[in-house]
């Protein structure tokens, strides 16, 4: 059964031409069979005509000039562009704020690297000094051993005498160096550094002349 509410809805769609061909035929059959429904359609059609005409007159009496519409559109577009700009700026702001953090992290990294470098240089210098001044292991003879007398230093060119305590101490010291490649390497490095320093000093001298 079709209620009055359904009939009203069907008639609105019928007047709006929004029914399918089949539905339209069905409504027309109903209209042909039911006088009250025809009266409803007439009433609705009259109202639609009156309202359409009244609204059209109202719009004509209050025209929206093209220039005015264009002006509103222009102002709207301007506010849209401003909105976009603000949004882009707000998106960029967090990125800018994160830069100082990255910079700080970078600065800390550099400081850490510098500290590590200083530590290594200190250790290198310390180990270098240790290599020169370290106490020789037990059984080895120290360079400043008191058994080498001032007279022995004056006879350095004399042939090695196994009976002489100074010659024996020197031979043992040389043997102990042969057995310690690390110290040899350290000495070789020192000689290399000295040679470089001499070379640089030589360049500096020739540059200033």
């Amino acid at each position, binding site marked *: 059964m079709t209620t009055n509410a359904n009939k009203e809805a069907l008639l609105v769609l*019928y007047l709006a031409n929004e029914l399918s061909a089949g539905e339209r035929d069905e409504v027309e059959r109903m209209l042909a069979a039911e006088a009250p429904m025809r009266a409803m359609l007439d009433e609705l059609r009259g109202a639609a005509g009156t309202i359409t005409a009244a609204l059209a007159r109202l719009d004509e*009496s209050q025209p929206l000039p093209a220039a005015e519409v264009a002006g509103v559109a222009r102002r709207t577009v301007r506010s849209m562009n401003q909105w976009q700009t603000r949004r882009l700026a707000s998106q960029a702001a967090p990125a800018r704020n994160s830069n100082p953090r990255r910079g700080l992290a970078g600065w800390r990294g550099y400081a850490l690297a510098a500290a590590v470098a200083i530590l290594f240089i200190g250790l290198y210098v310390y180990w270098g000094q240790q290599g020169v001044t370290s106490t020789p292991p037990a059984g080895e003879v120290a360079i400043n051993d008191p058994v080498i007398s001032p007279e022995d230093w004056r006879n350095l060119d004399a042939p090695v005498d196994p009976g002489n305590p100074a010659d024996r101490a020197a031979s043992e010291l040389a043997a102990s160096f042969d057995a310690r490649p690390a110290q040899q390497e350290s000495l070789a490095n020192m000689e290399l550094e000295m040679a470089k320093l001499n070379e640089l000093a030589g360049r500096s001298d020739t540059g200033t002349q």
Partner: protein
Amino acid sequence: MPLSATTPSLPASGRASGDADRAPQQPSDGALIDRIRKGDAQAGEMLVERYAPSLLRYLQRLAGSEHAAEELHQQTWLSVLEHVEKFDPAASAGGFKAWLFRIATNKANDVWRSRGRQRSATEGLKLVTETEAPDASHRMAGVEQEAKLLRAIDQLPEAQRQVLLLRYYSEMKFVEIADMLGCPLNTALGRMHKAMLKLKQLMDE
């Protein structure tokens, strides 16, 4: 004689713009929306110009004043920009136009609630009475009719007024209007039916 032969269409301004009315060489609403999503300001401008006449008229009648209509127009488009990423043409029956008018309707509802109906109605009437006329006596009758119409529109329940004005100014189908308003089709049709009869009765008084 078939009844449809003499059947006038329901209220429609005949001036509604939109995707269906665009020239073939003009980009579709969907294409412009995609360009807006990529940050193309010109695409936004084209869409605004495409819908400005019908949307402005609709807002003018809904809000009751030109000033309020322009304010709502701007708010509507800013809202479009704000939510353009979420817009899904497939999800709404009327496509972009229905979405646009829904936003506009919601914006108008917000203003309506916050400012009160009486003030808007007064502004609307003032617009009519302040209009200059070449023929004062002839114009007077017209002004009275227009004032009557505006009063009648204003007296309609909000839901009925929205359906009537949406139909007239956006020229959307009732299926689209119902979808836009989030109500069953029969409800939207019932509101339209009641709005037309009520308006006719008020105009005849």
